[in-house]
C-alpha cells in the first residue's frame, strides 16, 4: 500500500466492488418499485445484519488465507444451546452460553489449523459435519421452540433508540472489525500471516498464535450473528442456515476479498454484503419466485468476481502455485 497516494491513487484504492454497488443502487432505485424508501433501506439492513456479522468473521479467516465452512453448523448449535439453556437460566445467561459454544468451535478450528497444521478446508469441513451431527443428535433432528419471552426476542426483533437492534449490532461489529484489522498490531499481523506465512515467521511473529486467535475472533462475530438469528426465529434448529458458509464466502468474494489471503478490508465486506442484500430485496419486491432468486444470485456472484479479476487473468493460477510452494513440506530437498 502506498504511503501517500495522490488523488488518482486514492480513487484507485476505492474497491472496485463499490462501483458495482453504486450502479446497482442507482439502477434499482429507478427500476424497482418501492425500493427507494427509508423503510425499505431499514428492512435491507435489518435482514442483512446476520449475513454481515457472519461475513465479518469469515473475512478474518479469508485474510488469514483460510476458509471457514463450519459457520452454519456453529450457528445452528448456538441456537440449540441458547434455547436449551433458557429453560433453566435467564435470557442473558442463555445467550452467553450460545456465544461461548461458538467460541469453543472457533477455538477447536483454530487448534486444528494452527497447531495440528490441518488444511483449513479439511478441518472446517470435518467440523461442519461433526457439529451438525452433534446439533442434530441433541434435538433428535427436530426444531425446539423457545418459551415466549420479550427479552428473548429483543436481540432479533427489538429496537433501541428507534433503530432495530440487529442493525446496531451489525454497525458495532463493523466498527470493531475495522479497528481490529486496521488499528491494532494483531490485525496487521493477521494480514502478514495471510500474505506470507514464512516472512511473518521470520520477522518474529508467533504465526500459530495469530492464526489460532484469528479463528477465535472470527467465531466471536459469527456468534453474535447466530444469537440475532436465534432470537429472531425463537427456536433451536439443526438446519437453521446450512448455506451460511457459502453465502459468507460469496459476500466476501463479491466485495473483492482475495481468497488467496493477505488482502481485504472491512469496507469490502460491507459492500459485498450490501450487494447481495439489495439483490435479494429487489427480487422480493419484484415478486419473483425463489427459483429466480437463486439463479440470478448465482449469476451475479460469478459476474461480480469476473468483473474484479479480469485484468490479471491468471493471478489465480499463480496464487495457487504460490500456495503450493508455501505448503510444500519444509526440509524437502
Amino acid at each position, binding site marked *: 500500500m502506498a504511503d501517500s497516494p495522490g488523488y488518482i491513487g486514492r480513487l484507485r484504492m476505492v474497491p472496485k466492488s463499490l462501483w458495482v454497488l453504486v450502479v446497482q443502487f442507482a439502477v434499482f432505485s429507478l427500476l424497482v418499485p418501492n425500493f427507494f424508501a427509508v423503510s425499505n433501506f431499514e428492512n435491507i439492513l435489518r435482514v442483512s445484519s446476520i449475513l454481515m456479522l457472519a461475513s465479518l468473521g469469515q473475512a478474518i479467516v479469508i485474510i488469514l488465507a483460510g476458509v471457514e465452512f463450519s459457520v452454519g453448523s456453529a450457528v445452528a448449535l448456538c441456537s440449540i444451546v441458547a434455547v436449551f439453556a433458557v429453560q433453566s437460566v435467564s435470557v442473558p445467561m442463555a445467550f452467553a452460553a450460545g456465544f461461548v459454544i461458538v467460541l469453543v468451535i472457533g477455538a477447536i478450528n483454530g487448534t486444528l489449523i494452527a497447531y495440528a497444521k490441518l488444511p483449513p478446508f479439511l478441518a472446517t469441513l470435518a*467440523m461442519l459435519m461433526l*457439529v451438525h*451431527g452433534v446439533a442434530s*443428535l441433541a434435538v433428535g433432528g427436530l426444531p425446539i421452540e423457545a418459551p415466549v419471552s420479550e427479552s428473548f426476542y429483543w436481540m432479533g426483533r427489538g429496537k433501541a433508540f428507534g433503530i432495530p437492534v440487529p442493525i446496531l449490532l451489525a454497525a458495532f461489529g463493523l466498527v470493531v472489525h475495522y479497528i481490529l484489522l486496521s488499528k491494532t498490531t494483531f490485525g496487521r499481523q493477521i494480514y502478514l500471516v495471510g500474505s506470507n506465512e514464512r516472512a511473518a515467521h521470520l520477522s518474529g511473529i508467533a504465526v500459530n498464535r495469530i492464526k489460532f486467535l484469528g479463528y477465535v475472533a472470527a467465531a466471536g462475530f459469527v456468534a453474535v450473528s447466530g444469537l440475532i438469528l436465534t432470537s429472531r426465529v425463537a427456536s433451536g434448529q439443526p438446519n437453521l442456515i446450512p448455506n451460511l458458509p457459502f453465502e459468507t464466502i460469496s459476500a466476501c*468474494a463479491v466485495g473483492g476479498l482475495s*481468497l488467496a489471503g493477505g488482502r481485504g478490508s472491512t469496507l469490502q465486506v460491507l459492500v459485498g454484503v450490501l450487494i447481495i442484500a439489495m439483490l435479494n430485496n429487489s427480487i422480493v419486491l419484484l415478486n419473483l*419466485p425463489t*427459483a429466480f432468486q437463486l439463479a440470478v444470485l448465482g449469476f451475479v456472484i460469478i459476474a461480480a468476481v469476473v468483473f474484479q479479476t479480469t485484468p490479471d487473468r491468471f493471478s489465480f493460477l499463480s496464487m495457487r502455485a504460490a500456495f503450493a510452494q508455501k505448503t510444500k*513440506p519444509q526440509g524437502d530437498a
Partner: protein
Amino acid sequence: MMTNVSTTTAQQWSPTGILSGAAALICLIAASIGFSMALPNFGSPGNAANILLQFGPLALLALGQMCVILVRGFDISVGAVLALSSVTAALAIEQFGIFGLIAAPLTGLALGILNGILVGLLSIPPIIATLGMLLFARGLALLISNNGQVVLVTGAPQMQLLDFSFGQFLSIPYSALLTFGVFLAVAIFLKRMRAGRRLFLIGGDPEAARLVGTPVTRGFVLAYGLCGALAGLAAVLILTKTGAGLPTDGVGMELNAIAAAVIGGSLLTGGVASPLRVLFAALFIQVVQSGLSFSAVSPYAGEVVMGLVILIAGLLDQITRRKLQTITMH
C-alpha cells in the same frame, strides 16, 4: 517435463499416500466387521446387496469430486447439478421415451464444462464458480419443474427404469455394476490415457504444466466436465430408483462427496487421485449409514463419525509427513 511427471508419480507411491489410501480400506473393513458382529442381520448377503444398491450415487459424485480435487479444485455444485439433471432427464423421457435418459449425463456434462471454463479460462476460484453454479442449477431445476414439484416418469419408461433398478447379475444390482464399470473406465482414463495423465501434471504444478506447453485450460474443462457428467450419471441412478425427477434432491450431497474423496486419499493440494480408494471410502460411508439405521441409533451419528474420520485421517497424514521430514533431515 520428465521430472514433473516422475515427481507426481512418486507422490502417489509415497508412504503417506499409501497410508491415507489404506485408511479408507481399513475404515471399510473395520466398520463392516464391527456392525456385523454387533447386529445379527447386518452381515447377510441381502444387506450387502442393499448397500451395493444404495451406494452408487454417492460413489459417482465422489469420483467426480476426486477428478476436480486432482487439479486443486472442488465442486460444490454437484448436488444441484444432480437435481437439475434428474429433472431434465425426466422431462426428456416424457418426450422421447427411455432414450431421453441420456439428457441427464449431457446436462451434467454441459454444466461441468461451464464450471471448467469459469475456473480454467476466467481464473475464478473454484468455490465461487461452483457456488454460482449451485445456485444457478438449483434455481433452474425449480423453474423447469413447476416450482419444485416432483416430475414423475409415467407409462412404459417407468417400468423400464424400475426393471433396471431391481435387475441383478450374480446377485449384484445393475446399478452397482454400472458404478463399478464407471470407476474402472475413469481409472483407465486417468492412469493410461494421455489426457488423463496430464491432469496429474496440472494438479501437481499448474504453472510448470503451462510452461511446458500442457493445455492447462483444457485440462480444467476436462476435469470439471467429467465431474459434471458423473453427477449426471448419479442422477440416472436416482431416476431408476425413484422413477421421478427430484428438483429438491441432492442438498448437502456435495459435502458427503467431498468427504468421501478426502477419506479416499485425495489431497486438496492436488496431484493425487485414486479411484479404488474413493470406491472404498464411498462404500465405507454407505456401510456406516446403513449400520446406524440398522442399529436404531440416530442417523445423525453418521455425520459425527464422518467428521471424526476426516479429522483422524488428516491428523495421521500430518503426523506421518512430519515423521518423514525428520527422517529426511537427519
